[in-house]
């Protein structure tokens, strides 16, 4: 089902190296020929279009200003199956939600390059008058329609495509005036695909990164972004950051200079703040070490990415806290959810409501920082002590080449992602939440974390097991998957004095 890597790519052995101009040019022609709408992509025209966009609609610029002004921007997700529905959604998110960044989430057929199925989805959606697709079929609608969407809003627009096959979607989106694109080879391949190899995922994103760099060479800076939230299921910060570091080194190697890093919230104030700081510092460390001194890497937090409670009131608390956490952690932006999360894709109004809740929460927590607080500094240090050995080992396994190292490290289980659907990922690492609300590592699988670090994690989780009178083991991981989705009366009983 997944489209194979193109013949050309297969010709060169895998490496982190920048794709040579001529090869890339041939790859582009092949790629654009895969679906009729590809023909409308004209890079010169596209560069002109981006140049003419006001600065406040260029995401790369907006992210740079947000960081300079210490703002925390809001950005929802959202996509519907027909052009009209989707345009109305974007407008609502802009005007009623006051989103700082407006998204276009693609549907899952488009994500898997099943454009024929997407076409059927469009038709069914039109026939039934409701969206049958879980996103906007960007490729089917093509460049001209994309430009209409960009015109309809007064904010920068970002593509959210949850795919390891971004090549045609990316071409069309950039040509249409989208100035941001979320996705990366390691993160999405391990979290959104089953059969695709890590190698192919990396190759596909080398294409997209090289494409962004092509715009950069022409004077148009685009914003690329990495989805370190992974499977969204109790990802401890270090696991997210390891993929952030590797994916951003891969992007920088292709010439990307504006690269966002995303992490799902752990929902623990101190851990999230520590994670944002550690992520920023570690990525810059490794970038500089590899000779990329000029890559801008803003950090984004995402509202809780695991299972949500069905009660609107509880969901509202998670949304608001999600804004609080992002603001206090110093994240450059926060990606929002809605009170409908447990049920289905939200209506434009419910989606906008989630944005306003979050925005108000950000306002209320403005200017608060935890720097200097002991628990915060300790946690940040702990995260770094988890990330470094794994990244260093990966680089070592690739003889200094990130692409090779990543592929080999996943094979060996040195790199791993919890709850991954991908066959190339062992998914032996198991996280769980400790009694204080931190996400901890219950079982490291084959990942080379230092012994003393693992002792800290296990001690914390043993404490929880003891407190709740349950066995220390796999069940802790499973109950942690459900935890945040439980009714509040179960989480914090009001019958505690009986």
């Amino acid at each position, binding site marked *: 089902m997944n489209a194979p890597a193109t013949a050309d790519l297969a010709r060169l052995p895998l490496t982190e190296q920048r794709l040579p101009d001529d090869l890339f040019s041939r790859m582009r022609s092949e790629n654009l020929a895969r679906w009729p709408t590809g023909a409308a992509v004209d890079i010169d025209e596209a560069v002109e279009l981006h140049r003419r966009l006001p600065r406040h609609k260029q995401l790369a610029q907006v992210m740079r200003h947000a960081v300079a002004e210490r703002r925390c921007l809001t950005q929802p997700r959202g996509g519907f199956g027909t052009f009209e529905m989707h345009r109305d959604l974007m407008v609502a998110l802009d005007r009623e939600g006051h989103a700082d960044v407006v998204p276009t989430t693609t549907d899952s057929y488009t994500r898997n390059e099943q454009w024929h199925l997407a076409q059927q*989805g469009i038709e069914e959606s039109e026939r039934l008058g409701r969206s049958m697709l879980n996103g906007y079929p960007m490729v089917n609608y093509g460049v001209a329609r994309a430009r209409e969407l960009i015109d309809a809003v007064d904010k920068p627009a970002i593509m959210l495509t949850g795919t390891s096959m971004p090549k045609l979607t990316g071409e069309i989106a950039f040509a249409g005036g989208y100035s941001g694109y979320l996705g990366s080879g390691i993160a999405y391949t391990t979290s959104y695909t089953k059969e695709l190899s890590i190698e192919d995922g990396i190759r596909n994103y080398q294409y997209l990164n090289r494409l962004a760099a092509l715009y950069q060479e022409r004077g148009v800076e685009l914003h690329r972004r990495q989805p370190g939230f992974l499977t969204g299921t109790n990802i401890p910060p270090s696991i997210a950051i390891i993929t952030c570091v590797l994916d951003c080194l891969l992007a920088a190697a292709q010439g990307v200079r504006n690269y966002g890093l995303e992490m799902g919230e752990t929902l623990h104030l101190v851990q999230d703040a520590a994670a944002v700081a550690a992520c920023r510092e570690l990525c810059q460390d490794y970038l500089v070490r590899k000779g990329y001194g000029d890559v801008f890497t803003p950090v984004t937090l995402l509202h809780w990415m695991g299972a949500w409670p069905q009660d609107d009131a509880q969901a509202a608390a998670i949304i608001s806290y999600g804004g609080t956490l992002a603001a206090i952690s110093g994240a450059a932006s926060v990606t929002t959810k809605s009170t409908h999360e447990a049920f289905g894709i939200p209506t434009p109004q419910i989606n906008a409501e989630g944005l306003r809740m979050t925005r108000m929460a950000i306002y209320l927590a403005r200017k608060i920082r935890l720097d200097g607080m002991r628990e915060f500094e300790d946690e940040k240090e702990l995260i770094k002590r988890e990330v470094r050995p794994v990244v260093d080992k990966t680089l070592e396994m690739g003889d200094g080449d990130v692409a090779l190292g990543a592929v080999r490290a996943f094979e060996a289980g040195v790199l791993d992602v919890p709850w991954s659907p991908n066959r190339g990922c062992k998914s032996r690492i198991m996280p769980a939440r400790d009694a204080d609300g931190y996400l901890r590592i219950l079982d490291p699988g084959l990942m080379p974390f230092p012994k003393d670090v693992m002792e800290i994690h296990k001690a914390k989780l043993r404490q929880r097991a003891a407190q709740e009178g349950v066995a220390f083991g796999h069940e802790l991981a499973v109950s942690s998957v459900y935890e945040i989705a439980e009714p509040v009366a179960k989480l914090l009983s009001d019958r505690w004095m009986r």
Partner: protein
Amino acid sequence: MTDPRRTLVTGVIGSDTHIVGNRILSMALEKAGYKVVALGALTPATDFIKAAVETDADAILVSSLYGQGELDCRGFRDMCVEAGLDDILLYVGGNLVVGKQTWTEVEQRFLEMGFDRAAPPGARVETVLEWLAHDFATRENPPVPPLTKGGSKAGGL
């Protein structure tokens, strides 16, 4: 549980990557004594049927979370019948449609597609285990108690 061990096929249909609930469910079914053939995420409808035929399965449990299940599941029962799995037990569960829709209507849609039971968002494994136990028992002793459409119970979650 009744002997001989029942075989169940599980998987996430279509282009859907949501594996977590399906994996937890599969593990729980195994622990409860079922033989589970777990196809994982991103599984085409045809693969479910193939696996069910090959393993002579008693039931197929289809997960769909991402909203496009309504498209992916169309014709599933017909394909089963074509493959000779005339009255295999069919369950479906997850976030079956796009958006927050009235559950009773959603359930009706999937029952009409030929599923024996449909589980609403957030269903727990305990419920699924109860359903299976009840439905297999009923099949062994068809007259008492009569097979209630899965829906009626699912709605009460």
